[in-house]
């Protein structure tokens, strides 16, 4: 989801920079340089994790950014964390239930410019069979051969019915995404 937001932001920024390109240009994700991570906090500490596998279908309309689209599909089974036992637990029904819900998706619905190098990507995130509207603030960095969307935001896991450990584990999970697209 973070990625999709980033893609749209990229499209928006690029559109501001160059108005004579072609519409609905697909953007190619640089998988090696891209990542989607999370940081979960609890009363007595915190744990980092993320997803190793995800795909991004991004189409940038540099003339009319509103026509751009971004779709991210995360392979939930590729979840990792900083503790092997925690990884197992996170994959189980208390949290991501990856056997039952192996995919997490994000589909952008709107991109708003927030000034130079910044954008907000609106979209629908589906996880644990629940769809929730989310807003992803992004920093957009461009250079000669790539566009990078950096998002850092908080996701309320309880909106997806992920309530295990409420009171000890924070509902808000910090999401950090770094999506790099080649030009």
């Amino acid at each position, binding site marked *: 989801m973070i990625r999709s937001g980033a893609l749209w932001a990229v499209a928006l920024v690029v559109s501001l920079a160059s108005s004579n390109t072609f519409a609905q240009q697909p953007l190619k994700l640089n998988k090696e340089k891209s990542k989607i991570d999370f940081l979960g906090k609890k009363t007595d500490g915190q744990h980092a994790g993320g997803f190793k596998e995800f795909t991004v279908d991004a189409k940038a309309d540099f003339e009319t950014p509103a026509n751009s689209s971004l779709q991210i599909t995360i392979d939930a089974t590729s979840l990792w964390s900083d503790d092997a036992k925690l990884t*197992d637990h996170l994959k189980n*029904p208390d949290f991501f239930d*990856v056997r*039952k819900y192996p995919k997490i998706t994000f589909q952008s619905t709107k991109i708003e410019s927030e000034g130079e190098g910044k954008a907000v990507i609106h979209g629908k995130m589906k996880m644990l069979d629940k769809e929730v509207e989310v807003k992803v603030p992004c920093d957009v960095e461009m250079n000669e051969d790539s566009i990078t969307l950096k998002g850092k935001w908080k996701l309320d896991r309880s909106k997806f019915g992920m309530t295990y450990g409420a009171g000890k584990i924070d509902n808000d999970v910090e999401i950090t995404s770094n999506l790099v697209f080649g030009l």
Partner: protein
Amino acid sequence: MPFDAQLLIDILAIPSGVALIGALIALATSKKLPTWFGAGLTAIAWLAGIIIAQYKTLIPWEWWSEECWQRLFWPMGVAALVLGTSSLCCGNANWRLMMMSLVAWATAWLSIPRSSGWRDIDSLEGIWMLAIGVSTLLNGWLVERWISTKAPRWGIWVLIGGIGPPLLLAASAYGTMAQWVVSVVAATLGVAIVALFSPQGLAASIAAPLAVVISAMVAWGRFRSSSPSISWDDLPALFAPGIIALVDTAFAGRIPTWARILLAGLLSAGVIGFLYWRSMDGAAAET
């Protein structure tokens, strides 16, 4: 209240308290009412303690949940109410064996997850259903036979020894399952305390459902890890209660009570040690 303290109350204090109170009431009625009535009341209190604990924790309770392990309430309930009470009033062994077989089959069927996400373990389903069914049947039959013929008042504590190995496997799977398993053990302890001062009927009422729970816990513990790996190493855990009951039967009347309890504890610890050693051995091999 801090999360951990609340959790301890929910999964330890409540199920043990409810089961203990129910067993005390059963004990109080034991002189005026038939023994099977007390056994039934104890079984209901045992089940109630477990269900209330589940309500109190964050697991959404459903009578027929998508989570197969939550459906285990049904074979547990049948085993507790039908087999637990009838062992003290209805002596038809064939009928009871047939009922225990049905319970064993239901336990095996309900213990294995079958949603589309579990297709990679389809090939293991048959052999695991067989292992779970056979262990439930054998555990149930041996424990019940042991309870009805050899067990003194403290006998339930030998039975509790058999919970150790499957408890270890299930508790290591994931949070809510571990909480459920701990609540089962807590409720059992509640009954066991009262059983020290009562006829053996109280213990009989939860012997059969414990056989159900024990087999299922082993299955869940294995299947509910993110990368299910089925191992023959788990067989001692599946058959732990039956093994303990069998060994205890062989020594009954030959060694003092404290030695029988110690022997049950040692057998359980031995199986736990074996499981731990094998898991450490496997972890070392992976690195």
